[in-house]
């Protein structure tokens, strides 16, 4: 049987060309193994052959991302690889970005499995974790002996089309992908086991890690409310009757902007709730419970604030990923800025 053909990518340092002073060397490819390729070959075993090693200086790659990626792709394709491995880059930032960029390009353009490896703080991890299998390594080349076998093991599985298990088992950085499976022990028992461990101050692993949230400093307060223009945004799922834009009742992928011009309250003839995360009976009768248009109109008339935007922005909050929610914000904020909105009231159920 023919051996599975592998191309390996490394930088100028691991190719033993030189350090920082050689970081501007252009892309090249050499037949066979160079530097850490020996450890890769050993980890992959006899069924695989590292047929070539692609090399580029980290600075050269960083400064010529697109050109170097294209050149390297052509060079790599000539060797007809069936598997591509980049690095590991440990905590070297430019090298990590190079490994991620070229690995992603190879996966997309050549359609073969790719694996790379990086230390958790390498900026390449956050840039490419959703696209690639990135093995978690130590922060320096001293970890090569430990990390290369892990990379090789996962690479073998991918090349042979075997099932890849979760990140903590295979040793790669979490990709934000959830896979359904049947557990032997039902949820209630697992929950109690976790609780008992927690009470005994023993380590336990949550089945639902919360995403890390970033923080934004508070915006300056409104100084002139009498002239402020206020807009309402809601995650409470209020939409015009019939839900014209088909916003989902949970795990929303879109938001809507709807007129409230000339209305003095949210009439149930005009609006409905499609939110799948609460009992809709009350809000169906009175959508003002979520979009407080009636009181805002009164306060507007009384001059408590300048004016109300003639629309509200809405989506469904339940089950909606923070990634999508962030995107919604990014999409509608330009509209708020364009309309000179001074402040926003955001309501959630």
């Amino acid at each position, binding site marked *: 049987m023919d051996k599975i053909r592998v191309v390996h990518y490394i930088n100028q340092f691991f190719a033993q060309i030189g350090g920082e002073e050689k970081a501007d060397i252009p892309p090249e490819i050499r037949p066979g193994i160079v530097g850490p390729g020996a450890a890769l070959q050993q980890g992959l075993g006899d069924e695989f052959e590292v047929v070539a090693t692609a090399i580029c200086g980290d600075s050269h790659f960083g400064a010529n991302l697109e050109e170097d990626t294209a050149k390297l792709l052509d060079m790599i394709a000539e060797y007809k690889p069936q598997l591509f491995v980049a690095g590991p880059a440990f905590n070297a930032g430019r090298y990590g970005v190079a490994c991620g960029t070229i690995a992603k390009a190879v996966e997309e353009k050549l359609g073969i499995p790719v694996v790379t490896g990086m230390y958790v703080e390498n900026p390449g991890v956050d840039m490419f974790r959703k696209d690639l299998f990135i093995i978690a390594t130590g922060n320096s080349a001293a970890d090569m002996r430990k990390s290369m076998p892990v990379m090789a093991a996962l690479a073998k599985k991918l090349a042979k089309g075997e099932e890849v298990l979760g990140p903590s088992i295979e040793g790669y950085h979490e990709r934000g992908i959830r896979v359904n499976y049947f557990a032997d022990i039902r949820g209630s028992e697992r929950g109690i086991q976790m609780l008992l461990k927690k009470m005994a101050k023993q380590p336990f692993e949550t089945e639902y890690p919360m995403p890390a949230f970033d923080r*934004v*400093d508070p915006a300056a307060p409104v100084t002139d409310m009498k002239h402020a223009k206020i807009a309402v945004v809601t995650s409470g799922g209020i939409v015009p009757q019939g839900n014209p834009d088909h916003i989902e009742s949970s795990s929303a992928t879109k938001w809507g902007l709807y007129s409230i011009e000339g209305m003095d309250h949210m009439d149930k003839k005009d609006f409905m709730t499609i939110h799948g995360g609460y009992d809709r009976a009350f809000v169906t009768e009175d959508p003002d419970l979520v979009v407080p248009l009636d*009181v*805002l109109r009164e306060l507007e008339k009384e001059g408590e604030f300048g004016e109300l935007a003639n629309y509200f922005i809405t*989506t469904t909050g339940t089950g909606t990923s923070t990634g999508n929610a962030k995107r919604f914000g990014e999409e509608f904020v330009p509209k708020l800025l364009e309309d000179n909105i001074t402040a926003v009231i*955001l309501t959630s159920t």
Partner: protein
Amino acid sequence: MVKEIERAGIPVVHMCTVVPISKTIGANRIIPAIGIPYPLGDPHLGEEGSYKLRMKLVKRALKALQTPVDGQTVFE
């Protein structure tokens, strides 16, 4: 959504029923709302009572928007 609005420099008040979620996602001005199926009002108080409650909450929201805060602040 709260954070993207605030990131653009527009002050935002989050009126929400589950305050810990609001804190986790990073809202800075938070008004605790009444109930999950009726955040701004209370149908059990009748139409007038519910309206009054909503008025009180929205006035508090306007006040929160005019209040300087250093970090996450819950306006009870």
